[in-house]
């Protein structure tokens, strides 16, 4: 039920913060969603959509964290595998 999917904001309508809506494409289907909880959202942003609401604007600058963390961890693996068990 907490399923939320990323979708690109195609257009905005309304000025009132609580009733502002945006159009997103969900698998090719255009859908109007509430932007009440993402006042910062702009056209072109990717938002996480859940039951007709945008929950967050996806932070582009954090999008590569999964890959970056892997590289960092791989780089430190020789150290980690030696010291891993000792700390506790």
């Amino acid at each position, binding site marked *: *039920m*907490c399923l939320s999917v990323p979708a690109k904001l195609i257009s905005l309508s309304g000025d009132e913060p609580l009733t502002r809506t945006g159009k997103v494409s969900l698998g090719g289907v255009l859908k109007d969603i509430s932007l009440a*909880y993402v006042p910062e959202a702009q056209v072109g942003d990717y938002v996480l959509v859940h039951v007709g609401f945008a929950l967050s604007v996806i932070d582009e600058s954090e999008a590569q964290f999964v890959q970056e963390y*892997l590289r960092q961890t791989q780089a430190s693996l020789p150290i*980690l595998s030696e010291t891993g*068990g000792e700390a*506790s």
Partner: protein
Amino acid sequence: MTLKYMDEYRSAELCNQYVECIATIASRPWKIMEACGGQTHSIVKYGIDQILPANITLVHGPGCPVCVTPMSTIDAAIDLAARPNLVLCTFGDMLRVPGSQQDLMAVKAQGGDVRIVYSPLDALKVARDNPQLEVVFFAVGFETTTPANAMAVFQAHQEGITNFSMLTSQVTVPPALRAILASPHHQINGFLAPGHVCTIAGYAEYEAIAREHGIPIVVTGFEPGDILQGLAMCILQLEQGRAVVENQYTRSVNREGNQAAQGMVNEVFTVTDKMWRGLGQINHSGMRIAKKYQVFDAELRFGLGPESDQENAGCISGLILQGIKKPIDCPQFGKNCRPERPLGATMVSSEGACAAYYRYRRQESAA
């Protein structure tokens, strides 16, 4: 066509490298619970638990709102749906959840006006368009969904809509994690916290749990790469003897969460003690409609009975929701209990562990 913010976290190479990483880091056996049913679904769908090293065990948690809605609340929804001049709106996965006698699908087949909606705002529209009918939205959900429910009540209040109300079974994750940790039977070494719940609620509340119980908690997303990274972060903490909250799902979650959404939830709802199907009563774990908005509370409007913790005989979903048993441990699994004729709610929702095992693991368990 590539799906931005999805495909890049599903690459086999990325996942295999994380599995290798985890194999190198993990020197001992660890049991990690993924709190959210969406994560359970991904884990079983992609077979993540089967490619991990043998010393890492994943335990499926209680984070399925459909599964933990008390049977007595399902019965209340069924009672409402059978009434004349009343429309019961709900999310699609509530229709097959077994009540004590029947499910909402059966009431609908008998002529009850049960409508599936995508959003709570769609239920409000049904009320707006049908002023001669009572319209009840059956609102189940965790922190991810309560802001949407809150907005529907708030808008009904603003617009003076009098034929709309809400039957709620809304729960919050941190009290459930505390309840699991309080059980003397638990064997959990670390948690993956639910990324979408934390998108709304933030993760400050989890810091006290990590500290008090000495247990690492990693806020984690839902794609296979996310889950494997969350596991790597959690296992690294365990190996190094650390127990803090870390955030894997940084592209959506920050510590404070979504404050606009929290503000609306706190305006419309208030914290309450709550019954969880399969788990029993958990104090301060629910959200009910606040006094100011109680005219929209279907429980009060229609004089519905209190929650109870009854369950169908033979269903072990309570033990499954606590991570004590797995679906394949249940003698009813795939036999007397199947998605089209479920004994318990964990076989219904796509986030229920039993439904995920039935969909992706049936042949193995039969073999």
